[in-house]
């Protein structure tokens, strides 16, 4: 068999770069902001310790706990720039072990001997320290650790407050200082990541506005390359005698299906509009949008109109996701000639009606930017019936706008 040069197989190199970028952006510069918050909270706890240091029953143990915390913080400072984007698991587990030690030492060191209850400080400082890990570890790890810490501290606080319920208040605040920062940190990291993913999706979708009205599309293009390669391998196998003739059933089936798919792909691209590609290629729009455009009228929209339409659809769908409150909405997009119009195929200047229907949008809950975007497409009328928002846009395809 003649060797097939794998390096020349077309690949989506740019999108791979984009994928890396996506990960990097998700975590980008997250640590810096949390640093200040962490340092401020830990400083407060240290001051709290200093103010009461005379009353600690076993001050040596608490100091030892603080030393452990200090060690991890210094290590974090030193290692910060040498670490990969994600903190290695062993390092995280190591830090957790040290912190568990600090918690144990602090609890032992502050155990009330003759009634005097002093605040937990080093054990609480583990919470803000965990905040530092929020951008560099999966959310689950942080949540688990914070929950564990909260449970331990909670039990200790309740046990110590049994003689005097008034002590519950300070104890509760201690627990809150320990668990709230890492959990809020996780929430921020997650929102940022969602935001970055949505934006990347939008950018990718918007790259279709400059493409020809009818295009082959990236997915189909990749698929065509794949099929050509599959066909080449099969034929090569036959040519070199590596594959025996007549073909066994499986190979014969493979040949038939490659031929069928290849045939379909060779005629594809003449019917699919840029809008179809934009929707199918998008991770957000793909599952959420049902597009009906039997005449391929979308191809006639100019660049501004396309941008407006895509942005509006994207905003309508992604609103709940961006607000962090759930799944994308579903939406139907129908493009047709108004009734009574003489059907002229791909005639420049043809009138079309674009109907966007989506449910579950609150009446005043449409992003104003969406209306602004729709205005770029054409004149529109919106109506609400029950929970369904219907936007009917009437527009004329731009004769000079047919791209490509």
């Amino acid at each position, binding site marked *: 068999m*003649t060797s097939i*040069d794998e390096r*020349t*197989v077309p690949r*989506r190199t*740019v999108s791979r770069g*984009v994928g890396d970028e996506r990960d990097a*952006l998700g975590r*980008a*510069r997250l640590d810096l*902001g949390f640093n*200040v*918050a962490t340092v401020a909270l830990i400083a*407060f706890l240290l001051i709290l310790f200093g*103010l009461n240091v005379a009353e600690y029953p076993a001050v040596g143990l608490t100091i030892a706990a603080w030393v452990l915390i200090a060690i991890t913080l210094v290590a974090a400072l030193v290692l910060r720039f040498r670490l990969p984007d994600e903190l290695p698991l062993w390092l995280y587990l190591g830090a957790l072990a040290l912190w568990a030690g600090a918690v144990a030492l602090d609890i032992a060191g502050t155990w009330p001997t003759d009634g005097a209850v002093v605040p937990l400080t080093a054990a609480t400082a583990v919470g803000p320290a965990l905040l530092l890990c929020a951008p560099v570890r999966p959310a689950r790890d942080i949540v688990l650790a914070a929950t564990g810490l909260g449970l331990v501290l909670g039990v200790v606080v309740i046990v110590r407050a049994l003689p005097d*319920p*008034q002590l*519950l*208040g300070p104890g*509760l*605040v201690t627990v*809150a200082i320990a668990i*709230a920062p890492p959990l*809020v940190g996780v929430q*921020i990291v997650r*929102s*940022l990541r969602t*935001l*970055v993913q949505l*934006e*990347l999706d939008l950018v*990718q979708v918007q*790259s279709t506005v400059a*493409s020809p009205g009818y*295009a*082959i599309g*990236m997915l189909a293009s*990749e698929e*065509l*390359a794949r099929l*050509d390669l599959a*066909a*080449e391998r*099969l*034929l*090569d196998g*036959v*040519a070199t*005698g590596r594959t025996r*003739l007549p073909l066994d059933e499986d190979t014969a089936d493979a040949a038939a299906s*490659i*031929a069928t798919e*290849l*045939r379909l792909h*060779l*005629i594809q*691209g003449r019917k699919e509009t840029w809008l179809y590609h934009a929707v199918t290629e998008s991770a957000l729009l793909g599952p959420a949008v049902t597009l009906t455009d039997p005449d391929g009228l979308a191809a006639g929209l100019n660049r501004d109109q396309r941008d407006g339409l895509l942005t509006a659809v994207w905003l309508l769908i992604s609103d709940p996701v*961006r*607000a962090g409150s759930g799944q994308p909405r579903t939406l139907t997009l129908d493009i047709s000639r108004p009734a009574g119009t003489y059907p002229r195929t791909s005639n420049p200047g043809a009138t079309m009606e674009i109907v966007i229907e989506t449910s579950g949008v609150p009446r005043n809950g449409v992003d104003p*930017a969406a209306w602004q975007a729709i205005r770029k497409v054409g004149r529109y009328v919106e109506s609400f019936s029950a929970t369904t928002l219907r936007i009917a846009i009437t527009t004329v395809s731009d004769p000079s706008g047919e791209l490509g």
Partner: protein
Amino acid sequence: MSRIQKERDRLLASTARTVGLTATATALICLSVPGSLPLPLYLASLVLFACLGYAQWQLTSLLRLTLWMWVVVVAGVALILLHLLPGTSLGPSAISAVGVIGAASVACVCVLAVTSRSRVLLLVVAATATIASLAATLWLTGSRMVEPLVFTVTGWIALTATGIWLSRTVPRTLKRISTMSRAYRVERQASETEARRRQSARLLHDTVLATLTLLAHSGVGVSHSALREQAAEDAALLRQLRLGFTPDPARSGDYKLKPVEESTLGNTLESVKQRFRRMGLEVNWHGAGQVLLPSDVLDAFLLALGECLENVRRHSGVNEAHVTITDDETNVRAMVTDAGKGFDISTIDTGRLGFTESIVARLRDVGGNARLFSSPGSGTTVVLEVPK
């Protein structure tokens, strides 16, 4: 307000809300510990807690934001000052409650306050009011002062830092993403060009498809060596295509694979003839040989023709077919006839005929059509028609 700003405010607001509501809940539980406040004052504090919590909840609506921020500040400060009324030294739980209200419940507004100048003013006023009311309350009641005050200052510093950092990170990140749109556009263009290059190598695909179909049907009626020869040729062409060349096979002399806007029918028909001869079907051409067709029409026409001949080869039981090409001002017509066994059109499964939807659809795409005539024992005729 630009979209980037809106996304930024959304994130800031949801952070502020989470921090604020968590703190408010904590403070409420602290105050609910028996003995923290006399009952009438506790009930009054519940109203203030409700205001505080509702205003914090409303922050994420992003409507009348400044108003809600002020409500948070006023309700929080009022809650702190409420502790003046008993006139006695505050217990540990009450001190914790006012500490948390000062350090986070009210301070949550500073996450949002860093985005505009008027809000920075709010931040300064709110911080001053909170710390002053807290200090006054603790001092006048003769309670421990240091811890709650240090805690409150810490809270304001930590939350302001978080707000400043978030409000800078979000726009910067989003701007960086938007610069990537160029990369996407270039990628799309490249992929489009590549796909068109592959699609435009239509004769290559024509022969590849025919060979694949032949292989799928166990190469009925074709010698293994002929099949191997054909496969080797096709594989070599595909390889060239993959390596970025547009194959121009001088070797076989038949394939003309450069994208051409208009092609003559004659020399391309010759290649089809060669291919079928190798597989044991003699194709006889009759009629016009020098017809010019636009490339997409030629493309569809040849593919359909190839399919028809493949059907003849496979099903007719004869090894000779006649193709008559005629043209007038508007149309080019090919009549493919064989003298084979024929069939009853009404009983035949159209899929088996190779009249797959894609082929017919492709002809229709270019404005052409296909018609089929046959009856058992008297051969088959297919008429393909495309516009010039």
